């Protein structure tokens, strides 16, 4: 669960952090993306503008040029699918974010600013005209996107912003963008508070390097540049509700990785090592593995099946160096003066490239190259973007892949065993019981009432095990299994308690078009 790349213990109960009575746990809020609800025009907004002007006038902050001219406002009209009625979309939502012009006549922003967009409009600094934009590249795993503007005039007079290096902790940065609270551009200043690997809330199941600052980063700031000496040292992207004076931005390391990735005209994504690395502090364990009692070396505790690491590394191998960076016993490396989790070093190469490792195996040092690549097997455990969910409707039964987005439709309060079985399947099965894991578990999401299915006891929220005897590994199997001859009844078996339901074959086939018509479903499938 979570990020199956490199991870550190402690491993508290994920998703439902709770402690038994007597043990106190600081339960931090989850990070949240920061797109705004759309500009508000208020007295507070005016005050805010006055404040922003004052900040802009400070010569020490913005020295030369007018970088704010290259910061744009992005208005997005988007529609997200309804995951338990996958042919439907929610009503159109308007949101706003920020972006900035970079070389190559493109606008950089956050992926979450333009996710599920039906229309994207960009507005230049103090220019009343909206321009139509489209997505050139999007990296949902790193929450970055590049936009193109159809009207070439848009870029006239706009200087592309240049990228700087990872800012030092305690150095001053300025966040520029179009946050809520007013219509005009806004500047906030703060220091770099710390640099760590953080969960990125947009993908939901990935953690990458991120910088925390006390410069106010508010809804609408998303996608805007964070500047230092007029250079972009980050892209503002998320905050944590409940934390005061803490905003997060995406550092140059991640931005450059994204830009290099799309050089070949395609975005692949960040690679993952596929190993679970844990601190190695215990003296007995260190001496058992042949290590001195020094602060070097972290232990490989587990390896993700289906990754190149599976054939190259073993549990209890000790990781000593990654690409020349010594690994500390707390499974971190020192990078630009900051101790960050080793995962950062594994994310530096592009997918398909290798990292050079120095390990200790059976008390003997070894050098090896570990190819790293993007990991897709946990795709459904993260948030889905831009691609509407797959589904198949038969006899009013709606089949769709089990995903984190689908689970969310069930509500957080569900404690019944049916929901628990789905949670287990999505987040635990692959690592605990890989032999029984399915590439795309399928659920009966809902049943559209019709006489042909009116007597079914199971009507939704159930994991499909077999149909007509065929084990269901992915949605295509549902279509195939229902088509194959199996007598007068079609049998849908559910996972877990051995429950099953039957449909009369002929009646279900006849009813399907009528059900589609009744419930306004444009097609019986999206495969």
């Amino acid at each position, binding site marked *: 669960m979570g990020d199956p790349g490199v991870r550190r*213990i*402690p491993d508290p*109960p994920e998703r*439902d952090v709770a402690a038994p009575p*007597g043990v106190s746990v600081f339960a931090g809020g989850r990070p949240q993306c920061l797109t705004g609800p759309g500009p508000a025009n208020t007295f507070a907004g005016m005050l805010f503008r006055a404040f922003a002007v004052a900040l802009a006038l400070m010569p020490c902050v913005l020295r030369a040029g007018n970088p704010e001219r290259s910061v744009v406002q992005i208005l997005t009209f988007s529609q997200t699918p309804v995951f338990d009625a996958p042919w439907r979309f929610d009503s159109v939502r308007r949101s706003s974010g920020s972006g900035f012009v970079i070389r190559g006549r493109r606008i950089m922003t956050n992926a979450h600013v333009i996710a599920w967009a039906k229309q994207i409009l960009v507005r230049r600094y103090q220019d009343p005209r909206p321009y139509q934009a489209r997505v050139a590249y999007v990296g949902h795993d790193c929450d970055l996107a590049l936009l193109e503007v159809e009207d070439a005039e848009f870029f006239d007079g706009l200087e592309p912003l240049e990228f700087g290096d990872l800012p030092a902790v305690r150095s001053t940065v300025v966040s520029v963008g179009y946050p809520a609270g007013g219509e005009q551009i806004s500047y906030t200043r703060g220091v770099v508070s710390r640099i760590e690997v953080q969960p990125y809330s947009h993908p939901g199941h990935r953690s990458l390097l991120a910088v925390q600052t006390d410069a106010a980063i508010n809804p609408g700031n998303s996608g805007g540049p964070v500047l230092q000496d007029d250079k972009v040292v980050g892209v503002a992207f998320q905050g944590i509700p409940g934390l005061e004076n803490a905003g997060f931005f995406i550092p140059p390391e991640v931005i450059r990785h994204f830009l290099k990735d799309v050089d070949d005209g395609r975005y692949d994504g960040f690679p993952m090592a596929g190993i679970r690395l844990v601190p190695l502090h215990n003296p007995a364990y260190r001496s058992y593995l042949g290590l001195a009692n020094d602060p070097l070396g972290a232990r490989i505790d587990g390896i993700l099946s289906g990754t190149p690491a599976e054939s190259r590394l073993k549990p209890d191998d000790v990781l000593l160096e990654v690409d020349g960076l010594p690994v500390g016993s707390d499974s971190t490396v020192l990078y630009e003066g900051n101790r960050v989790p080793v995962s950062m070093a594994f994310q530096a190469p592009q997918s398909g490239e290798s990292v050079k490792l120095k390990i200790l195996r059976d008390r003997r040092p070894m050098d090896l190259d570990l190819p790293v690549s993007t990991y897709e097997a946990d795709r459904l455990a993260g948030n889905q973007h831009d691609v509407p969910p797959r589904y198949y409707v038969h006899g009013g039964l709606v089949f769709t892949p089990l995903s984190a987005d689908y689970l969310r439709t069930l509500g957080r309060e569900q404690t019944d065993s049916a929901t*628990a079985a789905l949670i287990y399947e999505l987040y635990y099965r692959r690592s605990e019981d890989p032999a029984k894991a399915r590439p795309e578990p399928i659920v009966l999401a809902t049943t559209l009432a019709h006489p042909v299915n009116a007597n079914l006891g199971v009507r939704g929220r159930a994991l499909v095990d077999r149909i007509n005897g065929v084990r269901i590994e992915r949605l295509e199997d549902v279509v195939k299994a229902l088509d194959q001859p199996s007598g007068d009844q079609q049998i849908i078996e559910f996972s877990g308690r*051995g429950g099953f339901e039957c449909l009369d074959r002929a009646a279900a086939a006849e009813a399907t078009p009528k059900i589609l018509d009744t419930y306004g479903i444009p097609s019986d499938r999206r495969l």
Partner: protein
Amino acid sequence: MSLFRRLVAAASLAAVFLGALHAADLRSWERSYVTLEVTYKDYDYSQPWSKPTRTVRKGGLVLADREILTTAQHLPGATLVRLQRGGRGKWYDARVTWTDPHANLALVTTDSEAFWDGLKPAELAAVVPPGPDFNLIRWRDGNLESRRVEFSKFSVREGALSFAPQLTLEVNTELAGLGWAEAVTLDGSVVGLTASKSGNTCQVIPSSLIRRVLEARRAGSYRGLGYFDFTWQPGENPATLRFLKLSGPERGAVVTEVVTRSNTPAVLQPRDLILEVDGFPVDVEGDYDDPDYGHLMLENLATRSKFAGDTVPMKVWRDGAEKTVQYVLPAAAYADELVPQHSFGHDPEYLIAGGLVFQPLEQSYLRAWGDEWQRRAPFRLRHYQNDHPTPERPSLVMLSVVLPDPVNVGYQEVRFLVVDQINGRKIATLSDVAAALKEPRDGVHRFEFMPGDSLQRILLDAAATDTATRRVLQRYGIPAAENLASTEAGG
């Protein structure tokens, strides 16, 4: 006199008469309904070595043979039980003579002659009529209170302390604080004892079930409540019945899983259609028509006239034909569950080695997360409740917490992990842990956890572990390094 006036007059006469009856009725109950004070160990499973106590008061019914009947709740861990009559005055030391948590019943007695003087056994109704109203009596501030409660329904549901489904009388009332063995009465007889309350519905153990259990116990033939250790789904979907090639009218419940807890041989098969249980036809909802209580879930036929060990004949539809099978009822036993619901009769089990605290994974531990434990307790631990025990792994042991000590540096934040092996030995019980710790290899104890995405293994210096354990006990004020209870009292 108009009809209306005559009715009013008759009603007021009846009211006066009923009032008098009510007072006499109450005085009579004062001699049959007593108060129990129970001090019991209210364990804190997050610190299994601690034994905080709590004192509660509940009701008890006077039976013949100097026995007081009450619910089993809070009695298995009781350290002091006292009895009081008349709602005030002297408390008499008492002892628990029998508890059955699955039936949620207990018997208490006292050797003090004075207590019994003038007490009168209560009468338990053989059949509970469906209301429409009952009286609920309880001691309140030294006075017996009698309040009207409304009949709601008869249902078949798990007992207050048991997974075994059993007949339950449900009554509606807005009275607060019920569930402490208040007596529900009708026409001078007791029809049940309250066990719990949710919303405005109070769950009552019906007198018919109480009588059967007590009579069987007196006769020496009580082997505990039995239950049907299989799962079924309603046969309401006609397409399913056609698939099973059922001939004749639509009826029956479809077996889905045949053995979940017990080791009883499976006489049923998945996709058997249960047509009759103990002579009662089963409808497509899985109900039968009870002569006393109307439509009830077929589960009730495991306790209606049978106990554990008895045979229940069943008629099933299998492979297109009717077949009769003899189902032997397994006894409801907590130990048959992978994650036991309770483990009465001993203090919480634990074992501490080098600051690592091992405990059995049981529901009592999960319930330490409070009323919302089913949402708040760690998901992975909770989810083991959906798994079945196997001969290789009948139960689970977890590393619940680490008490920091120099020997376990680096593991301080490890917790909630179910143990797979220690020093190469498979672990199902704390005795396995104790045995495995006698066999370190290469100078270390090797602890391995269940495969998955969480921590897989840790090592401890074997030579330093025992010293560290003693140090931990002293530093954290823990009286003993282990409590390995192995017997289960009360089923």
